[in-house]
């Protein structure tokens, strides 16, 4: 261990557990961390790896039943483990502060922003009410909140998610702490806002000379914002190194695999994504040896019986592995995917024409809130058979509403969806139900989409029964075949959904969607509830099944890398409108709309050498009051007077590539637009 040189917080051999009624979870196991002044240490790991518990241990805020079992936490030489609560309180919010994941629930709903920001100032700095108010005002300005004086009297629900997270930061930094623990500070935020908040945290860390512990699951965030990285797996640190060294010369197979599964914009679409088989171990009963051994390609007998110690391989680079690897996997080694079969040009299988969905504003004024909102306003696109159409946009842009209309879960206010020649809004009753066979859906949360009271067998049988297909024996045979397709053993039929992991549940949901042999599957955020390593398994499976059955997908995601990997054509949505449509390459390599470019720029690439890019400011306005003219103009760096007056019409930039912008990033083609 290096000593001195600005060392602020040193965690050594930290173990923490949670006692449950009948068992104990070994959540953190022998963690070493070192934070230096002015430096960001990234702590990366998948859900359940113990990274949040580590942060809470440092704060002395473990949930009830949690306790630090061993190890030491030293703040500038002072031991924090075992410190009396009264003294710990003087450190919390004063010398060590913490920011949590969900800004929507982290603020007290019934207190004003001003009161909440001023609270630690009065508590720790002994300021008067007036002084605390002044300081709170200063802090709000510091975190980039416009008109801070007005905001002091606002309540949390009046603020957007990004603003609330800024308030959280102001609150955490109000006493100028020495250490800031940021636990997934941007996971709940949209990608454009995420970039703003991370930049703010980075700048403030430099300005106040803090040490920052950035806890995240996102390798991209780490690559861009951390100086050094510690990788956690199943409660322990497996590798720590300076960021560049970790990304280019990692030694632990888990680090290598984690990076390989992280999708990139540059990911060749023809290749399968790398994925790690299996799931992390159950920490109620952790394995004796290396906890990654069961999923590791390099594991030997020694790994399964003897846990490797965390030891320095080079100054500043520590590792816990018996069989280290050397550097990242070569992306080209993964086998090529069978090409998508070229079905004869029979015209689009799915045609969405000028679809509008308007909520509220009904005839019954008794319901209060009479403001109407156009969740989707005039969206049109078509998908060729066997292709994937990707739909991207930030939360609240109307993409999920659009998905529901495509599968006729919601009737459109106007416009139409034509699938395989049938107009969905003209079909009724039995005819509609029969037509639904062709058009299935995958949901974001597979646990919600599977009836908790049904066995998997009954869940998979349901599509056949609903459509009256086959005898019981034929159905069973078909169900077995489906399980083989999605890679689940037949023994799952007798089990219930809660017994499976997220990835397995999404496989079950996919099997169910496939049961009726549909032509089109609409997948609404199919992998956003899953961890990176499992995410790539599901995406690969979706692609393989597409190739095999000639499926047409509509993949909806806020994650541009997922859509990049899956889609042939992409639509970008903003406030209910499709602002740009084109082939995947058009959108990702030659965007014409400033919003598309801004979205792309905001994606954190898992590459420490990726340079800085332009970012979009502020946040999406309320859909209840969309801006006049071009809806993006309030956030657009290129906006001019004309954008407020006149709504831009889609113009062509390449064949099949159009964007609605008055001042696009590229010159449009002059040719007359054809259907």
């Amino acid at each position: 261990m290096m000593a001195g040189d600005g060392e602020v917080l040193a965690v050594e051999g930290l173990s923490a557990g949670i006692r449950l009624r009948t068992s104990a979870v070994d959540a953190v196991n022998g963690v070493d961390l070192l934070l230096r002044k002015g430096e960001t240490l990234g702590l990366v790991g998948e859900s359940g790896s113990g990274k949040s518990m580590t942060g809470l241990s440092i704060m002395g805020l473990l949930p009830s039943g949690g306790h630090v079992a061993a190890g030491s936490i030293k703040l500038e030489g002072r031991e924090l483990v075992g410190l009396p609560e009264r003294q710990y309180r003087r450190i919390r919010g004063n010398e060590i502060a913490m920011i949590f994941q969900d800004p929507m629930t982290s603020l007290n709903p019934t207190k004003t922003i001003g009161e909440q920001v001023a609270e630690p100032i009065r508590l720790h700095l002994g300021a008067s009410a007036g002084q605390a108010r002044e300081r709170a005002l200063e802090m709000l300005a510091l975190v980039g909140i416009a008109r801070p004086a007005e905001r002091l009297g606002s309540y949390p629900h009046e603020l957007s998610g990004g603003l609330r997270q800024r308030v959280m930061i102001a609150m955490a930094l109000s006493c100028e702490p020495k250490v800031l623990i940021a636990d997934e500070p941007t996971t709940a935020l949209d990608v454009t806002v995420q970039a703003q908040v991370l930049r703010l945290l980075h700048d403030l860390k430099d300005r106040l000379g803090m040490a920052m512990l950035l806890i995240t699951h996102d390798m991209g965030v780490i690559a861009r914002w951390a100086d050094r990285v510690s990788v956690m797996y199943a409660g322990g640190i497996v590798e720590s190194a300076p960021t560049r060294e970790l990304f280019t010369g990692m030694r632990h197979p888990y680090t290598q695999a984690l990076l390989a599964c992280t999708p990139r914009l540059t990911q060749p679409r023809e290749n399968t994504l790398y994925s790690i088989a299996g799931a992390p171990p159950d920490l109620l009963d952790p394995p004796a040896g290396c906890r990654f051994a069961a999923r590791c390609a390099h594991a030997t007998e020694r790994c399964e019986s003897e846990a490797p110690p965390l030891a320095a391989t080079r100054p500043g680079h520590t590792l816990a592995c018996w069989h280290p690897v050397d550097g990242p996997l070569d992306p080209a080694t993964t086998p090529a995917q069978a090409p998508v079969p070229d079905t004869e040009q029979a015209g689009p299988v799915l045609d969405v024409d000028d679809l509008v969905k308007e909520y509220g504003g009904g005839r019954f004024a008794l319901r209060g809130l009479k403001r109407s909102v156009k969740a989707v306003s005039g969206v049109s696109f078509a998908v060729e058979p066997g292709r994937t159409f990707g739909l991207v946009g930030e939360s609240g842009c109307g993409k999920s509403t659009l998905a529901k209309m495509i599968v006729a879960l919601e009737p459109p206010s106007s416009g139409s969806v034509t699938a395989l020649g049938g107009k969905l809004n003209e079909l009724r009753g039995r005819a509609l139900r029969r037509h639904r066979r062709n058009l299935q859906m995958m949901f974001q949360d597979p646990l919600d989409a599977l009836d908790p009271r049904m066995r998997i067998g009954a869940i998979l049988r349901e599509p056949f029964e609903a459509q009256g297909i086959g005898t019981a024996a034929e159905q069973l045979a078909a169900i077995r075949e489906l399980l083989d397709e999605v890679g689940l053993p037949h023994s799952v039929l007798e089990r219930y959904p809660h017994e499976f992991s997220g990835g397995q549940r999404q496989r079950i949901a996919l099997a169910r969607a496939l049961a009726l042999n549909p032509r089109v599957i609409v997948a609404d955020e199919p992998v956003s509830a899953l961890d990176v390593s499992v995410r790539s398994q599901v995406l690969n499976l979706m692609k393989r099944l597409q190739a095999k059955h000639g499926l047409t997908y509509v993949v909806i995601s806020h994650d541009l890398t997922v859509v990049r990997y899956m889609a042939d054509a992409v639509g970008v949505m903003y406030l209910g409108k499709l602002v740009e449509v084109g082939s995947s390459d058009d959108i990702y390599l030659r965007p014409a709309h400033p919003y598309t470019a801004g979205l792309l720029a905001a994606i954190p690439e898992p590459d420490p050498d990726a340079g800085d890019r332009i970012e979009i400011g502020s946040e999406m306005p309320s859909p209840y009051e969309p801006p006049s003219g071009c809806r993006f103009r309030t956030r657009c760096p290129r906006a001019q007077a004309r954008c407020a007056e006149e709504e831009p019409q889609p113009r062509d930039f390449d064949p099949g590539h159009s964007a609605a912008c008055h001042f696009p990033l590229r010159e449009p083609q002059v040719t007359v637009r054809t259907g």
Partner: protein
Amino acid sequence: MTETATARPVPELTSGWRLAVRSFAQNRLAVLGVGIIVALVLFCFAGPHLYVTEQITVDPVSSLLPPDAAHPLGTDAQGFDVLGRIMRGGQASLQIGLFAALIATAIGTLYGTVAGLAGGVVDGVMMRVVDTLLSIPFLFIVLIAATRFSSTVLSLSLILGAFSWLAPARLVRAEVLSLRSRGFVAAATVMGATKLRIITRHLIPNALGVVIVNITFQVADAIIAVSLLGFLGFGLNYPDVEWGTQLSEGVSYLFEGAWWLIYPVGGCLVLVVMAFNFVGDALRDSIDVRLRRR
């Protein structure tokens, strides 16, 4: 690397209901509650066959005897053996509690389901009706109704049931509304399931838990309510008796020190109501556990 996900090894088959039973059995209060209910039901219904007493003909000679060998809990003003009387009264109290709860739950479930499924204006009107009835104090209206009926087990059950379906109706409606927005209902719709299929295969099985929990609480409430009616003089008529009437008769002799008329029967009453509340709480928790696990 491979796409074959190995199913997480689960040592034994854990069905949803079995999981609920397990978590229920882990709750000591719940087991205690079930024990008390079983014991009291046996006591009231099987007891009179083992411990035979005269409960019809008045015996003024042996009135208000304190507990002794012949009468372990003494006798009341009419000379009835109190222990035997508690058994007899318990039969009526338990029956009325159960019948009233079943009637209330049946009406409430049906009403709440219809409102929740119908939605819109129908739902609005149906819920205003519930609001209206809920704002009339339950005990008042039940007492007024009781002035016009001769009190029998059936009539008391009907009166109590007829005015206590409101809470279950609200509960079931809320449950139906929340279930309707769940993903698995959307999934069933997308696969072409009929409304009837969605109701019978998804909504009813999932709402069942809430309904079952509600029945236990309703039984507890109905037993208390019927004891209030009995206490205020609207209980069963001689020679029938339930615990409330028994207690109200006992009150007159409280000042004479005839404690055995009050505490044994009062204890049974509190015990059985508590037992049903324990069971209801535990059932609610175990259903939650089952749905939230993992």
